[in-house]
């Protein structure tokens, strides 16, 4: 798992970790059920205190991205498939909204657009 934190960023360290782990889970780099490094191990690698890593892991657990099993460690949550889908659906909706705006603004018909979309689906 690759995490880069910066102490010249304006975001607190625990937030940076949280965001990066979320991204890794959402883009599939970390798969469901995969084990995260232990808090202590991550703290050691990032040269930060375990307290900060603990906070990041707590936020990730609260948001449903990971699960912590006492005595075993932290794992990417299995049910987050729905999360990912919702998240991706949201992204797709935003993109489709842009597509619709472009179509309306430049006189591209609805039929033309759906044909293009159909071609991409059948690729």
């Amino acid at each position: 798992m690759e995490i880069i934190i910066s102490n010249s960023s304006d975001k607190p360290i625990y937030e940076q970790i949280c965001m990066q782990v979320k991204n890794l889970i959402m883009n599939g780099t970390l798969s469901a059920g995969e084990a995260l490094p232990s808090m202590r191990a991550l703290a050691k690698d990032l040269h930060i205190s375990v307290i900060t890593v603990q906070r990041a892991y707590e936020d990730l657990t609260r948001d449903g991205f990971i699960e912590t099993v006492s005595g075993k460690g932290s794992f990417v949550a299995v049910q987050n498939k729905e999360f990912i889908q919702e998240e991706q659906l949201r992204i797709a909706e935003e993109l489709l909204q842009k597509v619709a705006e472009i179509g309306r603004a430049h006189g591209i018909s609805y039929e033309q657009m759906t044909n293009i979309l159909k071609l991409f689906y059948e690729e």
Partner: protein
Amino acid sequence: MEKNNILVRDLYKQFDGFLLDHVSFQVPKGRIVGFIGENGAGKSTTINLILDELKRDNGQIQIFGKENTISTVKEDIGVVFDECNFHDVFNTSDIEKILSGIYKSWDSCLYRQYLKRFKIPEKKQIGSFSKGMKMKLSIICAMAHKPKLLILDEATTGLDPVVRDEMLDLFLEFIQDEDCSILFSSHITSDIQKIADYVILIHQGKIIFEEQKDDLVYNFGIVKCGKEKFASISPDDYITHRVTNVSVECLVRDKEAIKHKYKNIVVDNATLEDIMLFYIKGGAA
């Protein structure tokens, strides 16, 4: 269940010319507590009192939830001082025979593993070792009986950066067990900055602060500005300040908040050493 491996409350000890004044702090399980301060600030005195090497005048010290004066408590404590306390004539086998006859949980296998890992010669008298090697041996001995608490009093002072880094890695390995703690006193603030979870600053026998290391290193900052700009900064927004020939510098607790509040202001990162010097030499907050 006890969540602190060390609990110190209102520790008071008076000597000729020095006073340890109502010192209170804790070392929680699974955490590394760094203890910083100048020479003579009271770090070693506090540690000696915790280890019952000195008698306290007043106050409470508990180790693993028990009174620190009970000698069996030390079964689970590993101690490293700033020098190697073994006689020059011993070799590593002698030391093993001695310590395995003292500590019930001495692990011979672990001891030999460490000796091999850090390339400590096995038949030579330790009088012929370099300082770095002697300290490595002291640290190995402290860890080979699998303690729950490691107390390090200037244990890395006098070691070169490569050896120090190896030792810090060893301490981080030790703390992977969530029952274990480390109390690490040092005036090499960069070592503390690397591995501590909490940092305690002691000055002239008093605790000045007990903060999370990440707060200190990532949130604290140093404002650098001219006298005019300084006058516009509210005293509530900084901890202490100092005046140099060319500027005024302030130690602030939250550099992002300061950057938002006062536009166009220079706020630098602060190292633990900067923070320590500000507190000790800066004006009163």
